């Protein structure tokens, strides 16, 4: 394998002290992930100016129960819990992700809902909302 740097020269701004080659030779430095790519913060800010909701489960699985691991299973499956009476709002989802129980929800169900929200994927309804609330905030 051979590598080459990209031909076009990137602009760099070094902040604080410059790196010394000696320092980078330390394995500890080499061992840690060293690149953070700045990603759009749009979803997060959109969420703060909008409010969004997450239906549990999404409409295609309407009526199904939520298993403890967050998957959707036929209604009545042992160990699974019925869906909440209404979609959870972004604020409620945040609370659930922190282990809390929003008002009007059954505390015994929130673990399953938490798993469901964590498993949301792009394209499933509620994903944009989820993505916007799970992003780290400044």
């Amino acid at each position, binding site marked *: 394998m051979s*590598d080459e740097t990209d031909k*076009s020269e990137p602009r760099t701004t070094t902040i604080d002290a410059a790196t010394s080659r000696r320092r980078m030779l330390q394995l500890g430095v080499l061992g*840690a992930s*060293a690149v953070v*790519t700045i990603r759009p913060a749009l979803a997060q800010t959109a969420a703060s100016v909008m409010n969004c909701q997450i239906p549990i489960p999404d409409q295609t699985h309407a009526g199904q129960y939520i298993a403890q691991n967050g998957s959707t299973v036929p209604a009545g499956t042992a160990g699974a819990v019925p869906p909440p009476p209404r979609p959870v709002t972004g604020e409620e989802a945040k609370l659930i992700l922190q282990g809390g129980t929003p008002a009007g929800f059954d505390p015994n169900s929130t673990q399953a809902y938490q798993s469901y929200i964590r498993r949301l994927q792009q394209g499933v309804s509620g994903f944009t909302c989820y993505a916007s609330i799970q992003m780290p905030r400044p």
Partner: protein
Amino acid sequence: MPCESLTLIYHRPSGITHVVAPPVPALLEALDQPMTARDLAARLGFDDAEAVALLNERLAELVEAGLVRRA
């Protein structure tokens, strides 16, 4: 927490900003021409297998970020 030495990179072809920590600036500096990973390790004075393996991990990160290209 004091802010350790970090470098901001604006990568023109992609329009993407990366914040990189050591050893990335030195790696990019050393990669001034196409070379093999082994050459790079030698240039940086790495000889043991563990260091070379870690170096490859960092290179893989840079490849995914698009800052380094596999030829």
